[in-house]
C-alpha cells in the first residue's frame, strides 16, 4: 500500500480525517485533508509537473 509522504505530526491526523467521507467533514477538516494532500503531491509530483511545463 502506498503511504502518504508526510511527517509524523501530520500522520497523527490522517487516521481521523480520512476515516470519514470528505463531504461529512467540517470546513477545517476539509482544509486539513487538502493541506496534507498538497504536501504529498508537491513532494511526489513536482518533477513530472516540471517536465510537462517544459514540453
Amino acid at each position, binding site marked *: 500500500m502506498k503511504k502518504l509522504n508526510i511527517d509524523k505530526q501530520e500522520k497523527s491526523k*490522517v487516521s481521523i480525517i*480520512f476515516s470519514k467521507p470528505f463531504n461529512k467533514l467540517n470546513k477545517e477538516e476539509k482544509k486539513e*485533508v*487538502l493541506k496534507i494532500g498538497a504536501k504529498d503531491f*508537491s513532494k511526489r509530483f*513536482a518533477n*513530472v*509537473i516540471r517536465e*510537462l511545463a517544459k*514540453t
Partner: protein
Amino acid sequence: MEDTQIDLPTESDLHWWIKYLTSTENSIFGLSDYLPAISDDWYQGVMNVVGVLNLPHYNKLNLYEMGACLFYKVNKAHNQIDSNKRSSIIVTFLFFLINSRLLYPPKKVKDWAKMIARSKGRAREDWWESRLAEFFKQNTSTIKD
C-alpha cells in the same frame, strides 16, 4: 450508501487545493513555478468539466471510471483550460484525495496525460476512459496513514 459515495471537488475545494499547492511551506519542492497559470478562467474551465460529471448520465460510474472521465475531459478541454496535461493531473489527484485515495506513480500518470493529449481530438473517448479507469484501479491506494 456512504461507502460508495463519490465526491467531486467543489470550487471552494479547488481554491484551497491551489492555495496549498502554492503555499510557502511547499515552495521547497519547486512546484509553484511550474503549475498552470491559475486564473478565474482556469477555475471556471475545471468547474465546467466537474459540472458535466454531476449530470445524471454519470451517476452509474464507479470511482475509477469517474476519475478517468475527469482526467480525460480536463486534458481535452483546450478551449476552456490552459496547460491541460498538468491540469488533468492536478485535478485528478485532488479528486482521488477527497475520495480517500492516493494516486501514483507520478511518471506513469504523466505518460497517460501525454498519451491522451497526443490522441486525435476526442476519438475513442470511451476506449481511453475505460483503459484509464483500469490504470487508476491498479494505481490508487486507500489512504489510511
